[in-house]
Structures are given as C-alpha cells and as structure tokens.
C-alpha cells in the first residue's frame, strides 16, 4: 500500500476536519494508506516541517498540505520534492506558488472580489457613502487574511494601495480593521470595538463565517439593524446563516474537492509518475469559489442557498 | 502510680535510611509534666509527631486513656484532645492571631447564617482569642486581627502556646517552646505550663534547657538514638547525671532503665 499524507493547519477547525474526511474517504477508495498531521495552532510551521520529515522518512509517495506559513515552509517542501514526493498544496498557495507540484485552491482574492462586488451591487448608489467594518484574522496578516480583505476592497471599488497588505488605505468609507482570530468570540469583541468608532456601520466584511456570526451577535446586541454582512468559506452553518438572512452573501470554498482531487493526483503519480496539470494562467487548479446568496445581484454570478447547502462542508 | 493517659509501645519510624524511632516507648501520666530530653537528632520531635498524628509510625502501638488509637492526621489527634506546639510552630503567617487560634475549629454564627451560609462568627472568635491570651497572662496584644507574620518570634511562640493550652482537653505537647525566647518570655511560658497543669491537664515538654526541664518536670524521659533509655525523677538525679545518661556517657542505672 502506498503511503500518502495530509497535513492541515490545525485540528479544531471544521474546514480541516472536512478536508480530512474527504481525503480519508478517497484514500480508502483508492487503496492508499493515509497519514494525517496537524499543527497546534494557526501558523505552527515547526509541526508541519516535522510532519513532512516523517512522511519523507516513511517513504510516502506524496502528500497534500495546507501550509501554515506559506513561504517559510517552502525549503522543506523542496526537500520533499527532491526526495521524489509529489507535493500538492491545498487552500493556501505557497509563496512562490510554483514551489509545489500543484496547488488546488480557492482563489482567495477572487473570493473576496465576489463578495465585494456583491456588496457594492446590493448597495447600489449608497455604496458611495458606505461605512465598512473589517473583521480580519490576525495582526500579522497571514496570506488568506490580506488576499480576502484586499479582494473585497477591489470588488467593492476601494483603492487598495499595496495589494498585499491591508490597513494602508485611506478611503473614508473604511471604519477600521480589527482582528478576530476567526472565531465567534473574536468577532463579537472586534465588532463592539468598531461600532464604538463608527456607530453608523452598514457593511461588515468578515474573514470567515464564525467571525461574521460573532459580528452579527454584537450588532444585534447593540440594536444596529440593516447591516450588510459578507464573509468567505461556505461551511454549512455559514450557508444556513445566509439563508436566515444573517449573512448577506458568502463565497463558498470546496475543501472536500481539494482533498479528494489531491488524493487522486497522488495515486496517479504513484502509478505512472504523471503530475497533475494546473491552470497556466492562474498558476493553480482553482477548485472554485461560488457566491452563495438568496439576493443575487446582476453581473455577479451566484448560486442560491438551497444549492449552496448541497455543496457545503462542515 | 496512676494509669498513663497517653502511652506508646515499640514505635518505629524510618526516613529513607535514617531510623528516627527505633522501638521507642512512652508514658504520660495524669496531671504531670513529663520532660523529654535528648541529643539533637535523637528522635524527640519524631516521637511526639507520631503521638499527635503528624507522622504515621511504621510500627508500634499508641494508647490514649487505655484505648488503642491510630491517628492518620493531626486533625484526628486534635479531635481526641491532644494539642501540640510544634518545634516549627505551625502557624499561618498571613492569617490573623484569631484566625490562627481557631484554624481548623472555627466557630460558626448561630442560626441560619451559620448552619446554611456557614458564616464564621468572627466577633465571638476574636473575643475568645483575646480572652484566652490575656487569661493566660501571656502578652498584651494590641490587635487580635494582626497578621502573625508581623509579630516578633517571641510573640508567635506565645500564640502557639496559648492555642495549645486553650484547646487541649486531654494532653498538651510542647516541642521546645522556649528555644527562641528571651529570659522574661521563657519564664512566662514556664508559668503557663504550671498553670495548665493546675487545670488538670498533663503536659509533655521537650527542651534542651536542662534548668527549665528540671524546674518544672515531674518525671524526665531520656531519649537516645531513637528510643527511650530511661525515665528519671528529677528529685533523685542531678542535671549532670541526666546529661551523662542522655549523651551515653553513663549507663542508665537499674530501676530507671526503660
């Protein structure tokens, strides 16, 4: 039996739990022996290095990894590739992207753009004097954090200045950025803080749906109505929240697809040595991000929550 | 000879490779002050710790009022009426004098506040503590709520002694109660001991101060190398003989040999 690996960022996040379930099912179907690893926290590079080393030592054929530190893991991935392993990066591309054999990911900037365009479209003329709160991930701005944030701004029509960094913009519509660690608790506190700075907030961008749910909770508690909340992820509770009108729209990702595609690619590589193809323009295989909303906006492609619920994870 | 109140036979206690108690015997009679003397490390403190539940002996038997007892904690010994002043005092520095006196036997408020809410009756405890301290004439404490750590060494010793004297109902044990005390303070503790004796309680006094022991003790238990080697009457022996027996310079004469 060929050994394959799956290395995720953490253990506790439903996104990675789903990814692992997808990989497990696929590996079983293909007759592969799957070894799974995870870091202790988001950003735990050391554990991922150790995981790659044990996979090399175990003689694995290849592995899929969601990198915690997309540039610092590159030298270790190079080692694995030098040792003949097929390395497929999931969800968060490496920096540089071609350091992996293939990348199966959502285009996070595009996902951000989708919700930005949708928000701008929904507001219409009022977009010109919107007040936007940003519920971001962490103070050190990891890749997904700035990609989604800046994508949203692009979609919404805000000058992003440095496209790889948020916080340097001078658009008056931006109320402020607060970090949430991607959790409900963080979302509540961050929203409370931002509400004090601008009580007239009417658009909320959230890094993911838990942070959005927390933000909603804080808005509700403060009695602030009619706020447009957008997020990225597309987990089942998130889609449900879109359906319930809590979140206006979310950009859905497909972690199950990423994982099972990766397992198939490694199985193929183990059999005949062929490496997966990637979109030459994007530089990675886009597993797609679809906008889920029940209030479609002209010019922004979207699916409704019923369909979103069928495709959702976690 | 009256029946012993507290009696022990064949106590042994081992700390790793050190045998602190080696088949030791002990007898305390009604209404007496029993002096216990012995070299440093002879096992005196270990002996009384075994008697009051602070260490569980490896072997041997302890009888209180004729009944075999086996204390697994100082609390049990205390409930049986044995109060002890430990060599290292056993006070909680950050707690007040009153708190320390009632530690582990706090009084609760009467009525529902005490039974349901388990509230402490602090006024009553402070009153009793003040009474006990002044009744024993031991010292003039200005503030019964002062933390024990703010007291001088002598005053602390006083609190420990007063606690034991106030609450002992069967036996009071004092392990070197005057070691850190000045002349005046030592005198008060000796007077207190005679006072407690007058109240009918037997006392065990461990001390390196021979004049003190010879002054107040009715009988003297001499401890050597982990066991009792003699019990003498201070009226029959001179201090120098007691020291000679204690240090092994002289064989205990027949009749007093334990």
């Amino acid at each position, binding site marked *: 039996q060929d050994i394959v690996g799956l290395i995720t960022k953490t253990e506790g996040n439903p996104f990675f739990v789903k990814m692992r379930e997808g990989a497990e099912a696929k590996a079983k179907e293909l007759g592969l022996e799957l070894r799974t690893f995870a870091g202790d926290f988001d950003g735990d590079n050391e554990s991922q290095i150790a995981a790659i080393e044990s996979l090399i030592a175990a003689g694995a054929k290849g592995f899929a990894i969601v990198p915690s530190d997309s540039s610092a893991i590159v030298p270790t991935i190079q080692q694995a590739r030098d040792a003949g392993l097929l390395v497929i990066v999931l969800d968060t591309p490496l920096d540089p992207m071609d350091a992996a054999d293939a990348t199966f990911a959502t285009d996070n900037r595009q996902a951000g753009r989708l919700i930005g365009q949708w928000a701008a479209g929904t507001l219409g003329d009022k977009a010109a004097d919107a007040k936007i709160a940003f519920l971001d991930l962490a103070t050190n701005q990891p890749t997904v954090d700035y990609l989604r944030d800046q994508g949203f701004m692009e979609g919404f029509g805000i000058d992003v200045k440095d496209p790889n960094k948020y916080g340097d913009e001078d658009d008056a519509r931006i109320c402020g950025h607060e970090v949430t660690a991607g*959790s409900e608790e963080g979302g*509540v506190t961050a929203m409370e803080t931002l509400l004090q700075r601008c009580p007239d907030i009417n658009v909320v961008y959230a890094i993911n749906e838990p942070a959005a749910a927390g933000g909603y909770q804080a808005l509700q508690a403060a009695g602030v109505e009619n706020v447009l909340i957008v997020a990225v992820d597309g987990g089942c509770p998130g889609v449900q929240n879109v359906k319930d009108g809590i979140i206006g729209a979310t950009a859905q990702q497909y972690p199950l697809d990423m994982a099972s595609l990766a397992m198939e690619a490694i199985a193929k590589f183990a059999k005949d040595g062929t490496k997966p193809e990637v979109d030459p323009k994007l530089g990675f295989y886009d597993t797609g991000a679809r906008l889920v909303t029940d209030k479609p906006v002209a010019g922004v492609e979207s699916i409704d929550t019923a369909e979103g619920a069928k495709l959702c994870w976690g | 000879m009256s029946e012993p109140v507290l009696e022990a036979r064949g106590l042994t206690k081992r700390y790793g490779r050190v045998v602190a108690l080696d088949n030791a015997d002990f007898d305390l009679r009604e209404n007496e002050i029993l002096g216990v003397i012995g070299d440093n490390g002879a096992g005196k403190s270990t002996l009384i710790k075994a008697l009051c539940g602070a260490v569980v002996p490896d072997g041997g038997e302890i009888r209180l009022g004729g009944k075999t007892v086996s204390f697994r904690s100082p609390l049990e010994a205390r409930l049986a009426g044995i109060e002890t002043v430990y060599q290292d005092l056993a006070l909680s520095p950050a707690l007040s004098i009153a708190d320390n006196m009632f530690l582990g036997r706090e009084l609760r408020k009467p009525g529902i506040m005490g039974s349901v809410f388990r509230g402490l009756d602090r006024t009553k405890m402070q009153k009793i503590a003040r009474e006990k301290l002044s009744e024993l004439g031991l010292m003039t404490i200005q503030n019964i709520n002062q933390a024990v750590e703010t007291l001088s060494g002598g005053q602390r010793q006083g609190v420990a002694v007063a606690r034991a004297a106030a609450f002992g109902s069967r036996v009071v044990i004092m392990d070197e109660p005057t070691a850190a005390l000045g002349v005046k303070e030592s005198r008060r503790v000796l007077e207190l001991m005679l006072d407690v004796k007058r109240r009918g309680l037997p006392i065990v006094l461990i001390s390196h101060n021979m004049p003190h022991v010879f002054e107040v003790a009715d009988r003297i238990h001499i401890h050597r190398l982990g066991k009792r080697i003699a019990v003498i009457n201070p009226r029959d022996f001179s201090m120098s003989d007691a020291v000679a027996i204690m240090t092994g310079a002289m064989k205990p004469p027949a009749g007093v040999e334990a």
Partner: protein
Amino acid sequence: MSDDATGSATAERGLGNASHGVASFDEDAPSPLRRIQQFFHQNPTAIPAIILIVAVVIFAFVTGGKFFGALNLSLILAQVTLIALLGTAQTLVIITAGIDLSVGAIMVLSSIIMGKLAVDYQVPVVLAFPIGLLTGLLCGLANGILVTALKLPPFIVTLGTWSIYGALITLVSNAATIRSQALDQFAPFLKSMGARIPVGGGAFLMYGSILMIAVAALVWYMLSRTAFGRHVYAIGDDSNAARLSGIQVNHTLVGVYAIAGLLCGIAGWVLIGRVGAVSPLGNQTANLDAITAVVIGGTSLFGGRGSIVGTLFGALIVGVFDSGLSLTGVDPLWRQLTVGALIIIAVAIDQWIRRVSA
C-alpha cells in the same frame, strides 16, 4: 527540683520587677510619599482601584470624553465578564499556591457539552444545562485529584489536562459550531446570559455580567467569611503548617479545583450567551488573560495572599486599557505592545507600594 538547677533560677531573680510595658518608639512625621505608601500597604485592594481610576481619567481626556460614554463603559464590563469569571476561578487556585492552565479549555468544553446535548441530542435543557456545569466540576475534580493523590505540581497536571480537555473539545464537537438559530429553537435558555438590560443613556448590563458579579460575591464570601476560605489561605501560606493545624489539606485542595472547574462551567454558559453560538474555536489566550487579571489584582503567585475584588479590578484594568487604546485609534499591533508594557508598569507600581520597608 534538683539542687543544682540554679542557673536559670538565679538569672531570673532579676525579673522580679521587670517592666511589662510594650516597647514604644517616638515616630517622626513620615514624608507624604511614605504616607501614601503606608496607606496603600494597609489597604492593598485600593492599589488596583487607583490604577483603574487613573487609567479611566487619562483615557477620558485622550479620547475626548468618548471613553466615558455610557455605552463604552457598559461594553467594557461585558467584555471583561468572561475573564473576570475565569479569573475568579484562577484566584481560588492561585491562593493555594497552585495554578490552573486548563480553565479556558474547561469553559469551552462545558459550553459544548451543554449545547451539543440540547441541540444535537435534544436533551431537555433542564438536564443538558446541569450536565454542562457538571462537566466543568468533573474536569476541575480530575485536576484536584491528580494534584493531591499523585502529589504532582499543579502546573504539570493542568498543562496535561489542558491538552486532554482541548482534544476532547474537538472530539465532542467534531469541530462544528452550533448556530444561534439552532439554540433559539432548542435551548434559548443557554443564550440567556447574553441578554442585555438597558439602564438608560445607551448603557446596558449584560445578564452574564450580573451573574459574574453574583458569583464573585459568593466566592468572596466563601473566601473571607467561611472556614473553608480560611483554610484555602492557610494552605497557600504554608501547607505543612496548615496540615499540622488540623486542616484537611487534600480535601480542601480537591474542593478548590472542583469549585474552580464549576466556575469555568458557569463561564461556559456565559460564553454561549456572549457569542450567541456554541463554538469550539478560540479562547486560546483565555488562560493567560485570566492569570494576568489575577496577578494585576495583587494576588501572589506564591499563594496565601490575594482577593477576588483585586481580580475583578485586574480584569477591568486590562479591559479599560484595551478599550481606551482602541478608542484612541491605536492599531491592534501597538495595542499589543502597549498592553504588555502596561502590565509591567501596573505591577511595578503595585510592588513599590507594597514594599513598605523600601
């Protein structure tokens, strides 16, 4: 008495008419600074209170009054509620000279058990809720038993159980969030602590904050007005002396850890209300925040000294700094830096004041 026992007797002849007065010294007027120091020495909980007031005043100026908004003050109270609850649990443990690294994990685990039972298994909330609290109690009990029965250092025990409870969180929850709507449907009671009572002028009081204050008052009563509380202090002070004084050290310690666990369970309930959902994410820094609140509140990590009131002030101080800095528009990064510096400064002032013999 033997004939030669004369030494002490003769020496003490001199005691005949010894003065029995207590030593008294003339005291010259201390400097004002020294006098302030002495005041605080006698009223230790006044220190965090003063630091708090000074911080509030400064922020009120810097933010041009915005800080003093009724809403802002209400928010600060709501935001520190969880840390204050965990801090209360932590204070109990730290007074015994222990430490509990697992408080955050116990809180989240309890909230998940409540929510999961009520929503996914549709257990009636009258059962699910107490089972959740019981989970907290049992987790604390396990800590206490490991600390006393195996005589392990609390740091190690709770480091280990932190890992274990953390893994249980993921296992039990399957890393899935229980949504607000699902709670509304099956167990709105679990969310009740997040409700707010308006008190006019935009200010509000979260039910959870009221519960927190009630719990803190109860623990304060327990620590300062019951025998159990005296024993907790005595154990932290000198556990050997406490044992010799007839205190059941192990029983008391197990009790302390179990109560701390129960308080974390209660915090789990408040967490559900505050977040509006049951989520396995987050609260990784809750332990450290709680310990910080306790220490700023003047409780000694070496045990025996400390108070619940101090911890509440400690939690408020951190909350006020966080909120004040964010209102002045300080970037989260600089906020992190400033809060770090402020912790050191707050404790430095505290230490200076306590050092009465300085």
